[in-house]
């Protein structure tokens, strides 16, 4: 028995009239459009999808187990390697979770810098998504422009903390690095240019007839289904649910800023695209407000040299670019966490792939995988 057969479990009601028409094919793990090493076992009737199953684990590194063998400070670089497209968000979630369990609050200046970098990372993550998603569907041009703008963000990261992708930019209790000279100016210049660039992407895509045909009505998911599957982030907002952790359960210094939560109506691929484009504009809005009123002061709270949080457990979630990113940390008053459980947005969102692609064609699987915006490093951890 091959592996594909063991994975595929037939549902009697799903069988077609002529069973011989049904074929099972593997998409991935080497398929370039599955954004990594995702394997989707598709059951097809002709070219119509009547069922699918995701096989994950090809990028499993045991990050949660690594946490149990590292001190709290030492584990910080590893969280960057889960969602490597948005490493700063991961770091923010982890640091805030540990700060919460230790009852420490980062100083205001540190919080503002954190917000600026996290929102920049949100833009970078969405740019990576837009470039690859459009490339999957057939629009080659936006990729180059997206990566050009992403490069500017990565340069800001490099200047700030010395690394571009897996940044390790935040520490428990605040920041390790003070902002460099010209940080505010560089961020402002980027923000001013960027709004114009988003309009350009929209010119390339929003009105384009091929783009509309490939995205409108594809991968529709209703708000009820989203909530049932625990889907969060732009996918949930694309279905019309106004849910954003930044507003619903504010963390860091997000209550200080004015921004809107964009939502869609139809819950299809096009709406999720519009939501993410608008989110980039809102991120710029937040960054501009944060840069304008960034306070002076210390960047590190007073924390003991050896971090030993009190016995207890805590759950802290933040709005990562892909959805709700949560950390459950259990402490037993030693230097190492007893357990760290990560609630990754990509993993949960991926579970809704099956109902989103049922009834569509094989070519639409690529569009739907792209629109969920998964990062396999986070799915498998």
């Amino acid at each position: 028995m091959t592996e594909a057969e063991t994975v595929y479990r037939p549902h009697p009601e799903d069988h077609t009239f002529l069973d011989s028409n049904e074929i099972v094919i593997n998409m991935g793990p080497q398929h370039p459009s599955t954004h990594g090493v995702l394997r989707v076992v598709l059951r097809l009737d002709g070219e119509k999808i009547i069922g699918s199953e995701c096989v994950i684990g090809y990028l499993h590194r045991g990050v949660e187990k690594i946490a149990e063998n590292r001190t709290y400070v030492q584990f910080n670089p590893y969280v960057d390697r889960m969602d490597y497209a948005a490493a700063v968000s991961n770091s923010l979630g982890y640091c805030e979770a540990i700060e919460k369990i230790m009852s420490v609050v980062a100083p205001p200046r540190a919080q503002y810098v954190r917000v600026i970098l996290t929102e920049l990372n949100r833009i970078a993550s969405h740019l990576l998504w837009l470039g690859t998603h459009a490339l999957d569907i057939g629009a080659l041009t936006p990729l180059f422009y997206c990566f050009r703008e992403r490069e500017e963000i990565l340069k800001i990261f490099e200047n700030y903390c010395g690394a571009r992708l897996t940044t390790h930019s935040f520490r428990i209790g605040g920041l390790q690095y003070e902002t460099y000279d010209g940080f505010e100016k560089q961020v402002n210049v980027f923000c001013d240019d960027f709004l114009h660039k988003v309009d350009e992407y929209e010119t390339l895509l929003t009105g384009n007839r091929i783009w509309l045909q490939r995205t409108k009505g594809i991968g529709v998911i209703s708000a009820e289904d989203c909530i049932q599957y625990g889907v969060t982030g732009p996918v949930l907002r694309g279905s019309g649910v106004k849910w954003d952790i930044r507003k619903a359960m504010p963390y860091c210094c997000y209550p200080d800023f004015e921004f809107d939560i964009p939502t869609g109506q139809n819950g299809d691929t096009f709406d999720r695209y519009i939501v993410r484009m608008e989110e980039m504009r809102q991120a710029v809005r937040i960054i501009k407000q944060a840069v304008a009123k960034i306070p002076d002061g210390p960047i590190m709270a007073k924390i003991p040299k050896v971090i030993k949080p009190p016995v207890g457990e805590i759950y802290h979630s933040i709005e990562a670019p892909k959805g709700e990113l949560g950390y459950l940390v259990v402490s037993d008053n030693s230097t190492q966490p007893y357990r760290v459980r990560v609630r990754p947005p990509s993993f949960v969102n991926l579970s809704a792939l099956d109902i989103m692609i049922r009834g569509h064609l094989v070519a639409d699987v690529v569009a739907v995988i792209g629109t969920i915006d998964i990062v396999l490093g986070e799915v498998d951890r």
Partner: protein
Amino acid sequence: MSLFRKLFLVDLIEGMKVTFGYQNPKYIYTEQYPKERPPVSERYRGAPRLNINPENGETLCIACDLCALACPENLIVVGWQRGGPDGKTGKKTLTNFTYDISRCMFCGLCEDACPTDALELTQDFEMANYSREGAIWDRQALEEGPRPTQYKE
């Protein structure tokens, strides 16, 4: 989509306008890497270096072992001995320092832990090697820094 936009391919022309707007050579963004060295920021965390005192050529490392303790991957090994005549008392002196680049993730925790600015992650980024053993740097390699192969024109 309105009939006018559909018939006159307005969406296509708008997109083309953006693309052709960037045809001017002043928008070129590509770096010709081996010929053109990319500017690396001041805080870049690249190849590690063990700094020596420029005045007397002695190492700044005091063999305190803090970097080895801070490292999440346990890839630093600090070799030291007592400097006294019997080898058991007196100041610690550094004998060897091993740093395994192949396992390093350049998080910078060792650099933060170092009390004397001896260990530093520098702006060098060319660390390729033909063998795994070449990625394990000893004290001499750390003090000299990476020496990437240079090819003539």
